[in-house]
């Protein structure tokens, strides 16, 4: 029995995600997989990804993973990371494609005209580096992580949640955007916990023991 399935749809480096999971839970079996049956049988799902949204959706379809991911998101502890968070929503400005529609909301690009800080200095896109994550709802995955902890981000698009109750955290760049969402058994983050040192490993450790309830 596979405890954790890391969904592999050809979008980026999944090695660091699986290595980080093995690091926080050495006794747990982690499988990087593109097999819908393995995903169906796994106890919990990590849905990572970097790259562009149109390719993401295309690859999910081409590998027959779309239904498996949607099905898993209904029942099991499910963690979306970066593109894996964005893909849960209804629509992305990146390539103007439909997402999986698991959550209401859309994915937008940081607008050039707003990318200036309070001192009038230009802010760069992609948003790359360590930024503060402000927790706005209690959640088992925040256990042991101080409010405002810094996590590592690298992205040019962000999620605009369709309903405010989905928002689990926000980050400021230069305006507040949604950096984590939560609903039932699904938790998803824009940052990379697998690259966020102690805070990130704590979050992954929390996910590994999460029962999927809030």
């Amino acid at each position, binding site marked *: 029995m596979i405890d954790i399935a890391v969904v592999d749809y050809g*979008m*980026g*480096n999944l*090695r*660091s995600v699986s*290595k*980080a999971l093995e*690091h926080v839970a050495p006794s747990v079996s982690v499988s990087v997989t593109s097999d819908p049956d393995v995903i169906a049988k796994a106890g919990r799902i990590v849905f990572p990804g*970097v*790259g*562009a949204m149109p390719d993401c959706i295309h690859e999910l379809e081409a590998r027959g993973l779309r239904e498996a991911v949607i099905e898993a998101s209904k029942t099991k502890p499910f963690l979306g990371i970066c593109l894996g968070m964005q893909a849960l929503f209804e629509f992305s400005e990146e390539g103007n494609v439909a997402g999986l529609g698991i959550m209401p909301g859309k994915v937008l690009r940081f607008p*050039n005209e707003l*990318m200036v*800080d309070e001192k009038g*200095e*230009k*802010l*760069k*896109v*992609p*948003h*790359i*580096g*360590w*930024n*503060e994550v402000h927790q706005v709802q209690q959640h088992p995955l925040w256990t042991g992580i101080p409010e*405002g902890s*810094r996590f*590592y*981000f*690298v*992205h*040019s698009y962000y999620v605009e949640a369709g309903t405010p109750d989905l928002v689990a955290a926000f980050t*400021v*760049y*230069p305006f507040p955007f949604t950096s984590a969402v939560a609903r039932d058994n699904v938790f998803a983050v824009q940052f*990379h916990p*697998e*690259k*966020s*040192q102690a805070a*990130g*490993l704590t979050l992954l450790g929390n996910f590994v023991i999460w029962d999927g309830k809030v």
Partner: protein
Amino acid sequence: MGLAKRLIPCLDVTSGRVVKGVNFVGLRDAGDPVEIARRYDEQGADELTFLDITASSDERDIILHIIEEVASEVFIPLTVGGGVRKVDDVRRLLSAGADKVSINTAAVQNPQLVADAAAKFGTQCIVVAIDAKQVSTDPEPRWEVFTHGGRNATGMEAVEWALKLEALGAGEILLTSMDRDGTKNGFDLPLVRAISDAVGIPVIASGGVGNLDHLVQGVIKGHADAVLAASIFHFGEYTVHQAKEHMRRFGIEVRL
């Protein structure tokens, strides 16, 4: 409070060892890359950059093993550069555990490589390294792009090249001043500022850091989004943590 400025220790690797030279020549051994990576991670490094400065291609696999080993115990972003010539080189480094790949000489010889790699793996993991040298001061400072570790002039102006790289899909620029690299005289601040102000993507300043004030200047005067240094950390002059404390005292937002 928002995005922190990044401090990135750089490890030049050859024959499985970290080394450091002056103006790209005169190498001095600094230790085992995995041990050094672990130490900088513990000290609070925001990322690590590995540059494979191996001349012979048969030693290429050494860097892959080093990255595999580092990536299984160090959970911060890893950038790897040196000798990246084709899309398949990018793929191999990413699958060994690199988060970003830095392309240098090959981007000059074949700019399409930047576009192809960005299209395939995403803009966020394609860093392009620019090695620049000041070629005139009159009427305005002018910097030219060099390749092959600083040996070959390209005739290209550095700011124009940076803008072209952004358009091609580079996600970040790693900017090294060849006049300053290894000298400990500080960054070439007018160069850093010229490029950082011109492009919309992050710029990592590199080359010349000899003390902690240089890091501060790179951010405040050079407008760098990240600062990279090697020898001040390798030989125990400062820890990464001390450097970040120093930056914070000057009002720079850092992750501590």
